[in-house]
């Protein structure tokens, strides 16, 4: 079943695995506004990292710099051995390896679900149409909505649409999945179906970076939690460390506000 993914589930403990994302000394400004301050982060293969933080803390901006949807001014980002530069070829190469799920779905409204998923594999990965569509159907099966293949995005509920975007990102067989607040735009009763898919994905060994406000998900699924505030990383730790024994004053304050 996991043959669908480019990644294999590793059994080695996290510390012994190779780094797949390395961010060093990352700085970004919007004009004069310093939105990312000396961010350092290393993510291991197959690791699930949840990024928490108050709104406006730069967590979304951070995750978007990783696949060059935002530019940065200082520092280095290395993804799967490729250093992110301004070279467009380089950027496209990194984008092929990183799937992204947006808060507002961003499905292509003029195409059927099947086409939404198979378009990039056909044109970017240059797969045969049949192969791409087979994989698309298989992925739809996996996210639980195979019967929606020939509908248009507008005909689906929010939760279904978000599951399609996950399938669409997975169809490119990425090594890393980035989630930018995937459940924030959903009606409450649809949050669970999306989180369930993400949980399954995490269990299958995918490397995931998740910006979210879902504390339950963070506690249950994350290997590590990163707390952002004012554009810098305040604290990094396992869920137990961070939730039960936060070290930093700002972490305590943030947790007290949401728990």
């Amino acid at each position, binding site marked *: 079943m996991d043959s669908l993914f480019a990644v294999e589930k590793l059994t080695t403990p996290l510390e012994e695995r190779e780094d797949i994302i390395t961010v060093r000394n990352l700085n970004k400004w919007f004009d004069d506004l310093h939105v990312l301050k000396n961010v350092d982060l290393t993510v291991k293969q197959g690791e699930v990292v949840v990024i928490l933080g108050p709104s406006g803390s730069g967590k979304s901006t951070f995750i978007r710099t990783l696949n060059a949807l935002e530019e940065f001014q200082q520092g280095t980002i290395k993804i799967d051995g490729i250093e992110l530069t301004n070279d467009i070829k380089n950027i496209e190469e990194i984008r092929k390896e990183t799937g992204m799920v*947006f808060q507002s779905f961003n499905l292509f409204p003029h195409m059927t679900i099947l086409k939404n998923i198979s378009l990039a594999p056909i044109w970017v990965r240059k797969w045969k149409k049949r192969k791409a569509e087979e994989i698309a159907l298989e992925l739809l099966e996996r996210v639980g909505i195979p019967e929606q293949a020939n509908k248009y995005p507008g005909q689906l509920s929010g939760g279904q649409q978000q599951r399609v975007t996950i399938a669409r990102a997975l169809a490119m067989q990425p090594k890393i999945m980035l989630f930018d607040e995937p459940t924030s735009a959903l009606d409450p009763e649809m949050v669970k179906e999306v989180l369930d898919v993400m949980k399954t994905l995490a269990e299958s060994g995918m490397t995931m970076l998740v910006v979210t406000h879902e504390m339950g998900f963070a506690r249950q699924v994350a290997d590590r939690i990163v707390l952002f505030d004012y554009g810098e990383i305040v604290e990094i730790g396992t869920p137990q460390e961070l939730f039960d024994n936060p070290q930093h004053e700002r972490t305590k304050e943030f947790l007290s506000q949401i728990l």
Partner: protein
Amino acid sequence: MDTIETVKNKQSVTMKPPATSQGKLGWIKENLFSRWYHAFLTIAAAIVGGYVIVQTFQFIIAADWSVISANFRLLMVGQFPIEEIWRVWASFCLVSILLGFSWGIWKGSIGHVAMTIGAIYVVMACMPFVGMNTRVLVLSNLALLGVTYIVGAKVPRVKIPVLLLWVLLIPLCILLFNGFGILKPVGTSFWGGFLLTILLASVSIICSFPIGVLLALGRRSKLPVIKWFCIIYIEFIRGIPLITVLFVGQLMLPLFLGDGVQLDNVLRAMVGFTAFSAAYLAENVRGGLQSLPRGQFEAAQALGFNSTLMMVFIILPQALRAVIPAMVGQFISIFKDTSLVAIVGLTDLLGMGKKLVANPDFLGKQMEVFIFIAFVYFIFCYLMSHVSRRLEVSLGVGKR
């Protein structure tokens, strides 16, 4: 607690909407005579409307349409030599055949176009003033349309040749009029009437579309040279009247180029219209591009599409679809604007009309001539607007 229980147990009842119609009389009373001033306005409008309709019909019946019948050929094809007129008929037939095949193959909106053209054929054949020859030819075109429809529906394999022929249609027709270098060439100075109108319009519409899209994309480009070229071009063209562009083409260009270079009159007009229309289209398309949420671009980029693929598959289909009404408006406008060539010495449909009313034989017949011309323009403009509405429906613009 109690209320919640009752709501739960209660069967949900679906009711019909309350009846609103009180019969025709009720409707009339409700909508036309509900207040005294409504009644007054209704009666006044009925009197004015009735007067206009009666007058119009009286004019149509009393008018002397012989000016149209005597000059029908001039109005349609201008000075095109009569012994070479079969070329026009040949291109006519080609259009009928292609239309029939496309109707058979794709059905849908093309059917509406085909049926409208068919209706025009029938009307033409029934007109009292057309000659017997014309009548037979028009009716055989109608037959061609029908036969090819059936063939197209039965043999969908002809799809690719039909598409190819559509693309080549205009160049083929122009070559045919020019004689392919084999037949005796019919110079563009002999092209006139509605033939010239439709050639000018279709060439400028077809050519300005891709140029307009490229200009719109260029205006959003990150490369400063391309961006500024597009901005300057668009703003410059939009800043001058169309008639100026045509005058520059017809009068100034020969001066600049000197005697050595001979550019055809009609070609110059076509270039002028294309250049002009492209600038306006570019702004329409840019509006469509701006209407797309940024997320569409980001999603495409995040999937690894390069900018060409992103434009072709994600952005342009949505952007163009959003501006179909504006674009068709521009097409209709350029179709009507072709009548401006009458001012720079080409005899299109309107130019021919002006020449006719200047002829002492047809003194005082301008009403008939201009009403006929207006009618021809109206039919084609309405056809375009109708097709665009069908296109919107079939592409599902409204339902998103």
